[in-house]
C-alpha cells in the first residue's frame, strides 16, 4: 500500500484540516469558537462541518445555554484515527 492511500482526501482542505486540528486537542469546541480560531464565515464553516459529520469524523451536539442555541463539536474515535493517519502520511511524504 502506498503512502498516498493514507492521505485523506477529506483533509485536503484547509478549513476541514483546521477543524480537526482543533478538535483533537480540545475535548470539544462550539461553533463560535471554531469560527473565531479559523477566521471563516458562518456558511463556509457550516458546510465543512457537515462534510466531516457525514463521515462520522465529528460528533455534533445541540443544546441550549439559557435560551441561546449552542452547538458543540467533538472529534469521534474514527475522526481522531483518520487524522492521525493523515498526519503520519504527511510526515512520511515530507521525509522522502
Amino acid at each position, binding site marked *: 500500500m502506498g503512502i498516498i492511500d493514507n492521505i485523506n482526501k477529506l483533509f*485536503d482542505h*484547509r478549513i476541514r*484540516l*483546521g477543524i480537526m*486540528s*482543533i478538535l*483533537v*486537542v*480540545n475535548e470539544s*469546541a462550539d461553533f463560535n*469558537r471554531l469560527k*473565531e*480560531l*479559523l477566521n471563516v464565515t458562518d456558511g463556509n464553516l457550516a458546510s465543512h462541518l457537515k462534510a466531516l459529520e457525514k463521515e462520522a469524523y465529528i460528533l455534533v451536539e445541540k443544546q441550549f445555554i439559557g435560551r441561546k442555541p449552542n452547538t458543540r463539536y467533538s472529534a469521534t474515535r474514527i475522526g481522531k484515527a483518520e487524522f492521525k493517519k493523515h*498526519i503520519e502520511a*504527511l*510526515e512520511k*511524504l*515530507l521525509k522522502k
Partner: protein
Amino acid sequence: MSEQDYLNDISEIKDLMNRSSRFISLSGLSGIFAGIYALIGSAVAYWLVANSGREYLILDGKIFRLILLDLFLIAFFSVITAIFLTTRKARKNGENIWDASSRRLIINFLIPLVAGGIYILIILNQQKYGQTAALMLIFYGLALINASKYSIGHVRYLGITEIILGLICALVPGYGFWLWVIGFGIMHILYGSIMFVQEKKT
C-alpha cells in the same frame, strides 16, 4: 499538492493546536513587575518588623495586620499589571484576552492557589506561623505547574523552582523571609526577563 503545500498544512495544524488549547500571550514584562513589587513589599515588611522592637510577629498585632495589607497590595498590583500588559500583548497577537484558553488557564491556576490560601489562613488561625512562607511558595508553584498545561513552557519551570524553594524553606524556616524574597521577587524577575527576551526575538 506540492511539498510546500504539505509543509504549510503542518505548520497550520501546529498553530491551530497551540492557539486553541493554550493561551500564549502571557507577558514576560508582567513577571518582571510582579518581582519588583514583591521586592518592594518585602523591603517594607522587613522595615516594619525591624522597627517594631520585637524579633517575632504576633498574629493579632498591628504589625501583622500591616504585613497582611502589604501582601495584599503586592498581589493586587501584580494582578492589575499582568491584566494590563497581557491584554496589550493579546491584542497585538490577535488573541482574545477572555476566551476558552484564557479561562481554562485562570481556573486551573486558581484551584491550587485558592486551596493553598485557605489552608494557610486555617493554620495561621491555629498559631502555626513557621511554615507560612514555605506553604506560599509550594502552593504557588503547584498553581503555576497546573496552569502551565494551558500556557507557555516557562511557567512550568518557574513552578518547579518555586516548589524547590518552598521545600528548602520548610527545612530552614528561619530563612523563610529570604526564600520568599528569592521565590517571589528574584525568580519572577529572572523568568520574566527570559520570557521578555524571547518575546522580542519572535
